[in-house]
């Protein structure tokens, strides 16, 4: 089994390490970033309990609102119990998005999230996510087996987690990982 042959570090994100205003006058995400997280990327979310013990779960699709202020993640209920409990209890949310063919990675954070049932629009995202993610899996040499695991997860009961990101960070492996991202004008 081979890992991805990396194509080089992405420069798709604007890096800004300076102190920033916490009032969100413009959306955190620019169009490139919104398109990136809505594409066939690997998505993992985290929250935490009242005692600050972290939890995590995998999502199977992402949708960004037209104004780019809200992000909706779709995930199977059965594999996400701790995370959903923590979100319901008011824990903040972090979500990391990685394009598995290039390791280009970004992380979004929000102070909390709402949980709801998926709409038809969410289900459509789920379907197209699976198809394009499989193509990437194949490209980096993963067997059909991994696609089968994702396919099975897609058939489970889904829930959506919606949040308004207040921070974005570059996480592509390297010394710049963790730097804050600003939306390009």
């Amino acid at each position, binding site marked *: *089994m081979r890992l991805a042959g990396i194509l080089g570090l992405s420069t798709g994100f604007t890096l800004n390490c300076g102190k920033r205003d916490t009032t969100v006058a413009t959306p955190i995400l620019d169009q490139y970033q919104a398109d990136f997280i809505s594409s066939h990327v690997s998505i993992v*979310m985290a*929250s935490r309990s009242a005692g*600050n013990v972290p939890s995590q779960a995998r999502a199977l699709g992402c949708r960004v609102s037209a104004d780019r202020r809200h992000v909706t993640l779709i995930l199977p209920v059965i594999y996400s119990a701790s995370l959903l409990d923590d979100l319901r209890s008011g824990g903040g949310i972090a979500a990391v998005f990685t394009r598995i063919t290039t390791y280009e990675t970004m992380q979004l954070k929000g102070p909390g999230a709402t949980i709801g049932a998926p709409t038809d629009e969410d289900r459509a995202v789920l379907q197209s996510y699976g198809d394009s993610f499989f193509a990437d899996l194949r490209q980096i040499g993963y067997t059909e*087996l991994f696609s089968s695991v994702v396919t099975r997860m897609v058939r489970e009961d889904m829930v959506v987690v919606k949040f308004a990101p207040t921070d974005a960070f570059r996480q592509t492996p390297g010394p710049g990982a963790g730097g804050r991202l600003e939306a390009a004008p």
Partner: protein
Amino acid sequence: MSVALSSIRRCLEGAVPALIATCAPDGTPNVVPLSQVHFVDDAHVALSYQFFSKTRQNVLSNPRAVVQVMDPLNGTCYELAVEYLRTETHGPLFESMKAKLAGIASQTGMAKVFRLLGSDVYRVLNAKCVVEGMPVTIPALPQPLSGLRACMAAMAGCPDLAQLFDAVLEGLDRFCCIQHSMLLMFDAAQARLYTAATHGYAESGVGSEIALGEGIIGVAARERTPIRIGYTASEYLYSRSLRAELAKAAQGAELETEIPFPGLADSASQLAAPLMLNDRLIGVLYVESPQELRFSYEDEDALVVLAGQLALTITLLSHAAEQLEEPATAAARVVVQGAPVTIRHFASDHSVFVGNDYLIKGVAGAILWKLLSDYLNDGRTEFTNRELRLDTGLKLPDLCDNLEARLILLQRRLAERCAFLAIEKSGRGRFRLRVDRPVLVSES
């Protein structure tokens, strides 16, 4: 469902990137991909610390974290609830992870980006399956444990070191499907390892040397720890750099006294296990393969056990050779004929040349020179290990040095490089010098 960490070790090979979620003291969660999750023991893992990241900042103030890993064979996901304990910045764990990270970095095009600053050791509070994988038939791989058993059975009948070395390396091929292997012995005085036996290479490379700390073998020896890499790591490859250096030296130098290291040019998986007798380093058992991820944790377990057994057996056989001499067997009649050949000895490093061809240096070179001198002065051909050990002129390294292994090295170099000189065993603790051509000697 909770699982034993040791039962999911193959998820920690780096084939599928892992993820770690942490939480800042203010309650802000963080989740990022991880380069390396290293199995320490059933209750501990170590994570690579490469940059001062948010993850690190978080665990220093709130040690609880969650790590997700995936089984590369069936896609099963496991979640490890962990607690940060400490960071190690040197020593066996650090060096082992550094070598492994170099392989992962090189495989993912990150060779210039990834640099290990520390090994973050975490206690594993719980490991559980979170997503069931697909039922798959695991490809039939050689079973390391049964291979190990067969190798050890083959070792048991060996009367001397030479046969032991061959039995182990041939056994690895026959019983464990490991085609490329070598055994290096440690020279404590020189802080170097010399190759005593190899298997599966075009050139045997017996007599080639590796400095302590050089490449995977040298680091495994220095740190007294097994090191296993599943992907080519250029900084740990001997073949390329050494061959280039040798080619350069061969062009410029009149007298070449290096024996090329025989390692595979396209080595992708490497495993070096130190031979330890209590806390004493005897040597290193090294195996490699052109196939990525060829050696598993189970192979590492087996090789470490084999290396331990080998260290013990080498010590016992060497001791027996010097303490329990047998009477010499009868010598065959030798006819000395042909044109005389000049053998040169350089006292500075005990290098010995046959004509213009480099043969050997160091302790083995000094031994050969003593044997030839005695042969030319007194006509002696029969010798014992013990007399070499007691010979003050030879200035042998301390008792810990393995004289028997030096003799095997000399015997094999002669067999490969010099048709008219040979060292033959004439009984336990004894050997015979055979000279088939007239020799002239020159000392510098």
